[in-house]
């Protein structure tokens, strides 16, 4: 008797999970897939031989010296690489601040034994007497803002790099001030402490901003303690009175997105798409005018919050936050914008920009 009841319960449970999985589970998985995907991605890495080798030195140029060079990365030498042009190579990356940067020549002196000469189209490696050792693999990526150099390690003179513990790179780009980078030739793991410290810092800036948020808004009286629908009708009335009231347009768009967040998935997509029509129109009308910060802040906040997989707005959000940085005088808002831009850039895979923004934020607001 008990066995039969237990059997029926077990069967019912199996049926219930099966029915739920087939009717809703697959769709739900695709809707929420970015969450498990990001979690899963933390544990997966492409074999370093395909990606240029592990990073052993990473220099980010955050100074305002006018140099177009943003980042200089030295990788561990790679051996036995598959599917690559050279099975043994050593990769150096140069990332620039702008797309297609204007430079004539880059000379990189390595340990005073080698000189790497880069032009706009090719890279050549010479010894200290000026004799050509080899041509390098030269890849111009990301619309010219990233140059990857792969030095083949076939030549015996270059092979001594395989056993080196440290190399010193002296980077000379046209007439700009030279950079000296000491690079260990062994990769180090990213410090978890550093990551935790960054997380705590970001939280601190967000809290600081949340405390002062309302005092920053000067353009419009925001209705307080009202529901989303009440806010929507409040701003809708304002838009009906003046269709070019960009601040109200932005707030209306913002609240539409908030409503999207409170609605079913189906409705949410439609509401967020609708929200952007208002937010974009508001940003267009507000450009260069007083109140632009309010408008951009609304659009950027929505862009930072909506799922990147569906809407792909992280890059727009980061640009809006950077625009806020350039027009506001408020230090807290600047720091908050940098931190939010950091998160947006990370979402869309622009790691260098993200690191730079976090560094800038740390200059604005200190945190122990």
């Amino acid at each position, binding site marked *: 008797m008990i066995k039969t009841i237990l059997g029926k319960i077990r069967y019912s449970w199996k*049926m219930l999970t099966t029915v739920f*999985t*087939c*009717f809703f589970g*697959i769709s739900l998985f695709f809707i929420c897939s970015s969450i498990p995907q990001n979690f899963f991605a933390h544990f997966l*890495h*492409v074999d370093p031989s395909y990606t240029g080798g592990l990073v052993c030195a990473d220099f980010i140029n955050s100074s305002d010296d006018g140099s177009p060079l943003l980042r200089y990365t030295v990788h561990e030498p790679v051996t036995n690489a*598959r599917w690559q042009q050279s099975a043994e190579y050593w990769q150096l990356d140069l990332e620039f601040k702008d797309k297609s940067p204007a430079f004539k020549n880059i000379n990189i002196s390595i340990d005073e034994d080698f000189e790497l000469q880069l032009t706009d189209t090719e890279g050549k490696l010479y010894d200290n007497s000026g004799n050509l050792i080899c041509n390098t693999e030269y890849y111009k*990526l990301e619309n010219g803002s990233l140059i990857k150099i792969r030095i083949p390690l076939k030549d015996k003179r270059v092979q001594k790099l395989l056993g080196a513990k440290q190399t010193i790179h002296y980077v000379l780009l046209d007439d700009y001030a030279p950079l000296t980078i000491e690079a260990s030739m062994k990769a180090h793991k990213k410090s978890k402490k550093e990551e935790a410290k960054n997380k705590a810092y970001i939280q601190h800036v967000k809290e600081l901003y949340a405390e002062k948020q309302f005092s920053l808004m000067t353009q419009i009286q925001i209705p307080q303690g009202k529901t989303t629908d009440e806010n929507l009708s409040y701003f809708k009335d304002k838009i009906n009175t003046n269709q070019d009231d960009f601040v109200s347009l932005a707030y209306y768009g913002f609240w539409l997105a908030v409503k999207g967040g409170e609605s079913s998935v*189906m409705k949410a997509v439609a509401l967020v798409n609708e929200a952007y029509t208002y937010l974009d129109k508001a940003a267009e009308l507000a450009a260069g005018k007083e109140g632009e910060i309010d408008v951009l802040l609304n659009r950027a906040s929505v862009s930072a919050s909506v799922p990147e997989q569906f809407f792909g707005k992280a890059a727009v959000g980061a640009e809006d936050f950077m625009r806020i940085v350039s027009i506001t005088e408020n230090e807290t808002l600047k720091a908050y914008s940098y931190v939010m831009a950091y998160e947006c850039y990370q979402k869309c895979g622009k790691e260098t920009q993200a690191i730079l923004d976090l560094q800038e934020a740390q200059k604005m607001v200190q945190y122990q």
Partner: protein
Amino acid sequence: MISSLILSAMMAFIVLFFVVLMHNFAPAAILYALFLMFLFIRMTFAENKKMGSGVIYRRIFQTVFAVGFCIAFIADLIAERGSMSITSEAMSNSELPFCHIAIPQVLVPLLVTKNIIFPARISGHYASVASMILIWLVCTLTVGRGWCSWICFYGGWEEGFSHVAKKPRIKLLPKNKELREFHFGFMFFIILASLCELACIYCEWFCPFKLVTEFSPVNSIPSLIATIMFVGLFIGLVIVLPILTKKRTQCSSLCPFGAFASLTDRFSIFQMKIDSDKCSGCMKCASICPFSAIDIKTIQEKKGHPEITCAKCGECVSVCPNKAISYEFRFNMKKSSCSCGHHKNPPKTAAVRVFQQLLHPANLFRFAAFSFAVIMSSDFMIKSLNLIAGLFGGRK
């Protein structure tokens, strides 16, 4: 009738969300949504009228998807790289799209080296490693190897070619067992070779679909050999043999993902069931099975289910004169004497009958597989529809 209407309405929601809403009501999205709904409604109503008669709509979908996928994929490659050939830039920047066929080749090396031996993006891309592995995991737990016959964006080529001729010129039925043994043997060889070389060997040397997607430039003797091999395999296994045998020969003899999905299919919810009491042994199912999953022995020994390589395409259901083959829940297969299955209880009221029809394994399987197909295909198909419209001077 009512159950078909309910299923169609539920599918309409999925199509509306993933195809129409996600593409902001673009004309191509609306057109594709209508096509999908036409297929699903016709399939569901046909199946409810006569079991197995809706199988033609699956064939149409898979063939159209395979062609549409290749159009969109090649167009993307040409826009990005100027040709279908893999560039050193794409390779050095880990930008090769990762497809499901690479999964069995990367899993064992992943366990050993903790690295993915494929130069693809890990996440944040439509063909990234994390997303494809997750999709495979969910697929394994739901439709299992049904992926090959319902969702696979390459399978449609063979599906299409295997229905060109009316009758098979070569009969593979007596060689089914050998074919399966070769398939699994080849998969283990590929996995082992990939582990030894720390590179995806099937992708490098064998994959015939490089002809309709991307391939390495021919600039050395090994690359020339690889090119001859993939062109030969495409012509032989994807075009000629499917026409001559009316079977999906590449899927059932070479594809390492197919063999791997067969092994992991035991974790899926659904399985095909052969009712030995109803079976008259006519062997029509064995003759038509495109995956060589039913042998003479399967029927003679009354195994009660097809062999391990079954891809749940439903072709056997459509030809069985005695309705002896059906979709079944795997948890019902284990205890064949179970009397608690809904289908064993005769419906007392119309409402119960509708409810039972809705929860019928065939309906649930078709709904799950078609949901997958809708979601996986929408981006590619809308892109290729826009491209086709552009070619004929229409609006993009």
